[in-house]
């Protein structure tokens, strides 16, 4: 497989054992996630890593691979959660159908925001996505009869689910983790397919040089819109998972601080790498957990650490690690 994306020629080095292993990035990632609840101090933390990992992975498609720095990804994360909750709580839709409906509707929302925001470039795009996501926040705040306004959305507890004829107790943290992991696995497979497709090469070409991609005959505007929608769809699945997990949807999920947190996670882990988002989500959440043990002001440390990453480690933890191990771009 060749990537026409990066300027340099990608020489496939003699595949070391580790490098060859990374060819199966989806299976490898699933394997790591499968043992995660036993690596982390609590099952709740593991579920959060799973959820935020999916959200950040969807965002990485936009920021890491296409180079579009959006500050509005919370809109889709939140939309997925709200639509799931409303479908189950208000309309009594079965949980799996609610997830499908929520992802569909969130993708429509991504299409609307994408049509407006992909008309702009560079820094403008960041500002416009932030503003439009704030619009979604205020709409959710005002439409309190649907969303519960400031109190968040409540009243749609999913306690047991029927899975191929089996009744599964969804309140058990281990059961919950593995059901949600199935969604994460689906999202990872989907993302990997996108990245390996010709379309995946086109979006990387746009990141490297937009004008050249246009000159090559690619429809840059449409590709940006499509990737914006795909990214929104994957992130909204994370929102669905959050709604199933928490049984409430806090309004804060739509705030731009959440978008900012997603940006921080992708940078901590490493943009443009397949597993980086999960590393980023895990490090951010562990950091938050550990620091808030001895001070309520954990944000000051997380902010400072993020500033240091931007200055000195822009490739993030996972990206830098892959660099050190000498694993080439094609295998990430």
């Amino acid at each position, binding site marked *: 497989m060749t990537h026409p994306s990066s300027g340099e020629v990608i020489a496939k080095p003699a595949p070391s054992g580790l490098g060859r292993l990374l060819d199966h990035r989806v299976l490898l990632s699933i394997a790591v996630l499968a043992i995660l609840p036993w690596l982390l101090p609590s099952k709740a933390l593991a579920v959060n890593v799973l959820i935020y990992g999916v959200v950040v992975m969807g965002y990485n498609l936009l920021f890491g691979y296409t180079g579009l*720095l959006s500050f509005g990804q919370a809109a889709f994360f939140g939309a997925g959660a709200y639509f799931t909750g409303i479908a189950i709580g208000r309309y009594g839709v079965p949980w799996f159908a609610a997830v499908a409906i929520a992802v569909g509707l969130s993708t429509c929302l991504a299409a609307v925001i994408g049509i*407006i*925001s992909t*008309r*702009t*470039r*560079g*820094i*403008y795009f*960041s*500002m*416009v996505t*932030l*503003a*439009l996501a*704030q*619009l979604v926040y*205020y*709409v959710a*705040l*005002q439409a309190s009869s649907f969303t519960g306004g400031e109190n968040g959305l409540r009243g749609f507890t999913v306690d047991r689910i029927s899975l191929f004829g089996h009744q599964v107790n969804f309140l058990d943290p281990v059961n919950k983790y593995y059901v949600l992991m199935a969604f994460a696995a689906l999202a990872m497979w989907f993302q990997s397919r996108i990245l390996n497709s010709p379309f995946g090469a086109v979006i990387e070409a746009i990141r490297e040089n937009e004008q050249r991609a246009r000159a090559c005959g690619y429809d840059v505007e449409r590709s940006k819109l499509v990737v914006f929608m795909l990214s929104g769809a994957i992130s909204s699945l994370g929102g669905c998972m959050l709604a199933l997990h928490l049984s409430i949807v806090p309004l804060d999920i739509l*705030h*731009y*601080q959440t978008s*900012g947190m997603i*940006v*921080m996670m992708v*940078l901590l882990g490493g943009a443009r790498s397949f597993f980086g988002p999960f590393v980023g989500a895990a490090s951010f959440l562990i950091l938050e957990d550990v620091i808030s043990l001895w001070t309520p*002001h954990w*944000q*000051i440390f*997380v*902010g*400072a650490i*993020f*500033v240091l*990453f*931007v*200055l000195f480690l*822009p490739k993030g933890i996972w990206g830098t690690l892959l660099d050190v191990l000498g694993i080439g771009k094609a295998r990430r």
Partner: protein
Amino acid sequence: MDLSLIIMQLLSGIALGAVLVITALGLTIVFGMLGVVNFAHGALFMIGAYAGLYLASLTGSFWWGLLLAPILIGAFGMLIEFVLIRRLYGRSIDDPLLLTFGLSYVLVEGVRIVFGSDGIPFPTPPQLIGVLDLGIGFFPRYRLFVIVLVAVVLLALWLTLEKTRVGLIVRAGARDPTIMQVLGVDIGRVWLAIFGLGVGLAALGGVLAGPMRSVNPEMGSLVLAEAFVVTVIGGLGSIVGAVVAGLMVGISISLVALFAPEMATIVMFALMAVVLLIRPQGLFGVRGRTA
């Protein structure tokens, strides 16, 4: 609903817009010169409000707070440019944005540690308490003062940029920094000063907004979104655009609040969406740079 009520609401909108203009101006000037969008702008606005409040209570006079807070916070802004942002010139255009976003976390949490998480009331200066009879209705003296002060600051800024040697260097530097360096201008110092000016304007906006809004650590996040909307509508880097769009947004928020209060926070985003669909570069923006 009579006409005088609408006119009074219009005046309120101009006062609201005046604060937006000052804040968005700081953002747009820094972008125009340095090509940097400062995501900590809202946090610095909030710190300006706190600094104004603190200095006012320290000196016993609102006027010292109004004068000193923008200068002090502006100097702090220069420190930020010198220590952090300067390292990122020549790197990806996204990097200063990400860095200032992380910085806003630090600043907001820092204020929470020093002043607590709860809002603090910002007393209106005694000389400006009460209302003034305009013939058609009563208007708060303080808001009238805000409108006049912002007009004076805008005039001073315009005269400096258009009529002085310093302004000439600044305008030329925005157009082509390399040529300016060849001509012997220390462009680094110009950038330092401009970043300080932008942050100082954010702080001034914060102090002015203090008596109109409640002062709390989160006040910056709404302001940041508002300032973004204003600069996007006006056109990033355009000073005239910031003024026109700021007033436009302030007036529409006020007027919509009169007829449909629940829509007041939403209207400016809708306005921005419409402008983007018709003119992606903003009302006074130059095509090619951003859209």
